[in-house]
C-alpha cells in the first residue's frame, strides 16, 4: 500500500509545460525538421553523379573562352541530396495532405496515372525537332486533346502552344488584335471587370491596349447596360471570366457577346473557372471568341509549387486563322503534320481556304507536351459523362460550404442564388481589429491550406473557397467545422488568432523586411570563388 497523498503531487502529464524550455541542440523539434541551405552543406568538390573520364582534351580553339574557375555551385552525394530535398518537402503543404481550397486556383487531386503516362518514353524522351515521321504518336496526343477541347467548348479551333494561362490570354488578345488590324481597324481599349484576375489587365497592356474597368451590378456580375454604353469604335474587346471570380455565372454573357460583336469588338473569356461548367454549357454557345483553358486547373495537371502550366486557347471561326504557329493538322491519309513556318502557306490553302494569317510564334517548339499527356489521360479517364459529373460535384461542394457557413461569415452574394464552384465570403462582421488574414492563419493551425484571401478585390477582405470535386463529404465537413470555429473566434475577438500560426515550421513572416532589403541570393564571405 501507499500512504495517502497529502503532498499535492500529481503524475506527470504530457503537456507543453513539461517540454524543455530551451531549444534543442540540433534545432530540430521532433518531426519538425530544420534544414540548412545547400550552400551551407556542400562544396563544389562534392558530387552525386558518376561521370566518365573525358577522352579528349579541350580543343585549342576554345581555350580563350574557358572559365577561369570552377562554378561556385555546391554538390552533394546522393544520400545527402535525397535527404535535403525530402526534409524540405516536409515543410510544405500539398493536396496530397488535405484540402487545399484556394479559390480560382482549382487545387484538385492529381491522378498518379497521369504522372505515369507523361513519363512514357514516347512522350518524355522525344525531341521537339525530330522528323515528324518519328513522332506521329506525340502529335496524335496534341491532335486528340485539341479535338476534345474544341468539342467541350463548342469552338472552331484551338491554339495549343501557350505555356500557361496568362500566356494563353496573351495569345487570345493577340488573335483579336491581329483580326482587327487585318481589317485596318486599329482599336485602343480593352474593357476588363474590376473583379478580374490581375493577369487580364496586365495581358491587355502587354499587348498594347489601354485598360478600362467595367462596373459590376450589386449581384456581382458585369453591368450589361454600363458595358453597352461604353462600347464603341475604340473598344477592341472585353475580357470576362465565366464563371466569374465571385464564383457566379455571368447570366448575360450571350447578350454581352452580341453587344460587343455588334460594336465590332471581340469577347475574350478567361477560362480559369471552366471546371465549373465543363460538360454543362459550351462557351462557344455564349458567343465567346477566345478562351484559354488552364490544363493545370480544369484538367488536373499538377501545380508543382508554381507551375508548369499549360494554356491552350480555343478560338472562334473569326479568330482561328490568326492563331500562332506551329499547329497540328491531320490530313485524310491519317498523317498528322506539324505546320511550321515552312509549310504554313500550303496548309492555309488546304485547311483555311487560304485565309490562315498566323500572328506568328509565341515560344520555341510546340507547347507543353508533358501537360498534354496528363490532361488527355484525365479527360479519357472521366469521359464525357465523368467531366459533366466533375462540374456538378464541384458546384455541389461549393454550395454546401456556402450554406454551411453563411450564418457565421458574411456571404455578399448568397441571397442572389447558388454559387458555382467557389463560395465567397467577406470579413464584415469580424471583431474590431480582426481580418481575413487572421482567419487564414488560424486555418493553417487547423491543418488546412487557407482559401484565397483578399481576392477578388471587389469584396472587402474576400475569402474565396473552392473545394473542387475531389473533396469527399467528410473532408468538406472537417473543413467547414474548422472554418466555423476559426470564424467564431474572429467574431468573438480571440486575441490568440493574431499570433497564428503556432504549429508550423515558421510563424508569421516579416514580409516588409524582405521587400525593403531584398536578399535574393545566398552570399557567404567564405564562398569558394
Amino acid at each position: 500500500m501507499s500512504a495517502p497523498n497529502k503532498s499535492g503531487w500529481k503524475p506527470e502529464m504530457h503537456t507543453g509545460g513539461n517540454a524543455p524550455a530551451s531549444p534543442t541542440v540540433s534545432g530540430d523539434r521532433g518531426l519538425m525538421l530544420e534544414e540548412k541551405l545547400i550552400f551551407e552543406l556542400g562544396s563544389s568538390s562534392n558530387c552525386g553523379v558518376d561521370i566518365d573520364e573525358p577522352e579528349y582534351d579541350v580543343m585549342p580553339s576554345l581555350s580563350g573562352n574557358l572559365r577561369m574557375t570552377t562554378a561556385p555551385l555546391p554538390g552533394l552525394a546522393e544520400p545527402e541530396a535525397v535527404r535535403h530535398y525530402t526534409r524540405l518537402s516536409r515543410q510544405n503543404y500539398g493536396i496530397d495532405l488535405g484540402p487545399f481550397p484556394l479559390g480560382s486556383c482549382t487545387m484538385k487531386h492529381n491522378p498518379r496515372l497521369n504522372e505515369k503516362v507523361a513519363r512514357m518514353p514516347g512522350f518524355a524522351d522525344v525531341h521537339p525537332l525530330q522528323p515528324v515521321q518519328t513522332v506521329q504518336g506525340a502529335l496524335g496526343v496534341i491532335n486528340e486533346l485539341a479535338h476534345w477541347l474544341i468539342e467541350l467548348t463548342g469552338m472552331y479551333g484551338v491554339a495549343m502552344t501557350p505555356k500557361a494561362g496568362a500566356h494563353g490570354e496573351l495569345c487570345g488578345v493577340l488573335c483579336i488584335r491581329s483580326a482587327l488590324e487585318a481589317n485596318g481597324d486599329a482599336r485602343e481599349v480593352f474593357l476588363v471587370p474590376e473583379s478580374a484576375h490581375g493577369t487580364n489587365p496586365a495581358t491587355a497592356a502587354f499587348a498594347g491596349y489601354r485598360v478600362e474597368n467595367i462596373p459590376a451590378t450589386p449581384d456581382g456580375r458585369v453591368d450589361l447596360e454600363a458595358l453597352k454604353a461604353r462600347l464603341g469604335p475604340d473598344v477592341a474587346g472585353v475580357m470576362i471570366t465565366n464563371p466569374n471570380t465571385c464564383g457566379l455565372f455571368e447570366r448575360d454573357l450571350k447578350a454581352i457577346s452580341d453587344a460587343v460583336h455588334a460594336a465590332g469588338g471581340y469577347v475574350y473569356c478567361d477560362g480559369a473557372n471552366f471546371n465549373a461548367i465543363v460538360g454543362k454549357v459550351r462557351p462557344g454557345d455564349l458567343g465567346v471568341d477566345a478562351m484559354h483553358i488552364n490544363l493545370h486547373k480544369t484538367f488536373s495537371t499538377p501545380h508543382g509549387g508554381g507551375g508548369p502550366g499549360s494554356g491552350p486557347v480555343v478560338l472562334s471561326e473569326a479568330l482561328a486563322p490568326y492563331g500562332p504557329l506551329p499547329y497540328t493538322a491531320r490530313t485524310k491519309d491519317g498523317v498528322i503534320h506539324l505546320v511550321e513556318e515552312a509549310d504554313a502557306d500550303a496548309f492555309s490553302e488546304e485547311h483555311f481556304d487560304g485565309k490562315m494569317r498566323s500572328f506568328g510564334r509565341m515560344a520555341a517548339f510546340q507547347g507543353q507536351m508533358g501537360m498534354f499527356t496528363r490532361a488527355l489521360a484525365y479527360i479519357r479517364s472521366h469521359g464525357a459523362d465523368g467531366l459533366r459529373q466533375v462540374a456538378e460535384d464541384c458546384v455541389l461542394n461549393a454550395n454546401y460550404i456556402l450554406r454551411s457557413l453563411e450564418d457565421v461569415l458574411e456571404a455578399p452574394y448568397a441571397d442572389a442564388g447558388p454559387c458555382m464552384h467557389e463560395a465567397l465570403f467577406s470579413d464584415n462582421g469580424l471583431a474590431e481589429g480582426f481580418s481575413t488574414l487572421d482567419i487564414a492563419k488560424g486555418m493553417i493551425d487547423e491543418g488546412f491550406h487557407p482559401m484565397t484571401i483578399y481576392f477578388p478585390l471587389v469584396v472587402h477582405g474576400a475569402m474565396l473557397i473552392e473545394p473542387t470535386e475531389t473533396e469527399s463529404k467528410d473532408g468538406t465537413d472537417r473543413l467547414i467545422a474548422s472554418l466555423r470555429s476559426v470564424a467564431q473566434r474572429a467574431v468573438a475577438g480571440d486575441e490568440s488568432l493574431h499570433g497564428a500560426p503556432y504549429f508550423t515550421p515558421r510563424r508569421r513572416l516579416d514580409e516588409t523586411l524582405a521587400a525593403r532589403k531584398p536578399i535574393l541570393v545566398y552570399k557567404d564571405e567564405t564562398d569558394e570563388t
Partner: protein
Amino acid sequence: MRYLPLTADDRSEMLAKIGVGAIDDLFADVPAEVRLDGPIRDLPMHASEMAVERHMGRLSSQNLSAGEAPFFLGAGAYRHHIPASVDHLIQRGEFLTAYTPYQPEIAQGTLQVLFEFQTQVARLFGTDVANASMYDGSTACWEAVAMAGRITKRNRVVLSGALHPHYTSTVKTMAKFTRDLIADALPTIQGTPDNSGLIARIDDETSAVVVQYPDILGRVGNLQEVADAAHAKGALLIAVVTEPVALGLIEAPGALGADIVVGEGQSIGVGLNFGGPYLGLFGCRQKYVRQMPGRLCGETVDADGRRSFVLTLSTREQHIRREKATSNICTNSGLCALAFSIHMTLLGGGGLNKLARVNHSRARQTAQRLAKVPDVTILNDNFFNEFAVMLPRDARDVVRELADMNVLGGVSLGRLYPGEEQLANGLLVTVTETTTADDIEALASALEQVLSGEAA
C-alpha cells in the same frame, strides 16, 4: 468514377442541406437554351486506369524515342542523363501537389528551393541575381528584351543572326504588338560568329543586343567584345544560353559583361518532353532587379526571428500592379526549377565541369569521325557540344532518310530556316554524355550510305 469521392447518398444529403431538389437547380443561372441536357455526344464515356494506360501506351509506341536510336539532336533542347533521384524527389506530393507559395508558413520547402535555385542560376550565369523561373528560354528572351526597353527607354533591339530562330520569331511576334523595332539577321556560314557585322548594327537608339552563347551553330564567340560595343552606345547586352551545361566549361556571360542573362534550363533535370514543359532562366545585375519579370523569393525572418523565405518585391507583379506590372506572367515553371536545382545539387560545380568536358570530348570525337565522311565539311572553328556540318545536298532530306534507317542524325538548318537556300545543306549535330562510340559510328556510316546513294 475513381477520382470522385461523393456517393449518391452524399449528394442527396448535401442537396438537402443546400435546400434544393436537384443538381440542376444549382445551374439555374446558366440560361436554359444553352444548358446541355446530357454528356456531349460523339465523345467516349469514362474509362478505367487500365484502358487509359493502354490508349496512351499505344500513342507512345508510335514515336521513335531518343533512347531507341543513335541520337544527335539539339538546337535548343538537349538530351542529358537525369539521375533517378531527381524524378523521385519531384514526385513527392508535398512538392508536386503544392501551389505557388502564397502562405509561406506552410511552404518553406518550396520557398527554400526557390532561394537555392535563384542562387544557383545567378552563380552559373555570373549575374548578381536571378528570378524563380520563366516559362522557357524563348519567352525569357522576349521578357529580357522588354525589360531592356524599360531600363534604357529605347525601343530598337539588335538580334544576333545566330540567335535561335524560334527565339527570334518569338521576339518579333511580340514586337509587332509593342511597336519595338527588331533588327535581326541570318546566321553567317563561317567558322566564327560575325561580331563585326553585329557590332556595326548597334546604334544610339539600340536598347539591347541579344547574343546566343554558344550560338545556334554551336560556335563560342567573343562575348566581351559585343558587351563593350553595346555599352559604348548605352545599350544593354542580353546573353542567351540554351545549353547551360556549356557553362561548366566556358566563362559565365555575366563575367563577360552581359547585363541580363536568360536561358533554357531544360538540359539540367528536365528532359526533352517533345518541347515542354521547359524552364526559363533569368538573371541580371542587382540594379535592375525592380524591372525584372516573374516571381522572386527573398530571405526574411519569422515572428520568432528564425531565417525564413517568402515571395517578395511583388509590387512588380500582375496580381498587385495589374496593367502596370512588369509582365503578365503568373504560373511559371516551379516543378522544373526544382528538378533543375536537384540535378545541379547532385552535380556541383566540379561535376558540372566534368560533365561539360565529357560532352565536349564526345563532340570532338564525333566531329573527327564525321570529317572523314566524303563530302561532309565541319563548319565550326570551335564548339562546345554542338556543331554545324555542310552536306552536299538538302539536309532536310538527309535527316528524313537517316530517320528511315533508325538514326536521329541532327537538326537540319532547313527546318530552322525554311526558304533560306544558302543554309539548306547545313546540319546541326549535337553530342552529349549519353552518346556512345557505337552511336557515333552508326551516324557516320548511315551518313556515308545516304550521301553515296546506297541507302535502301
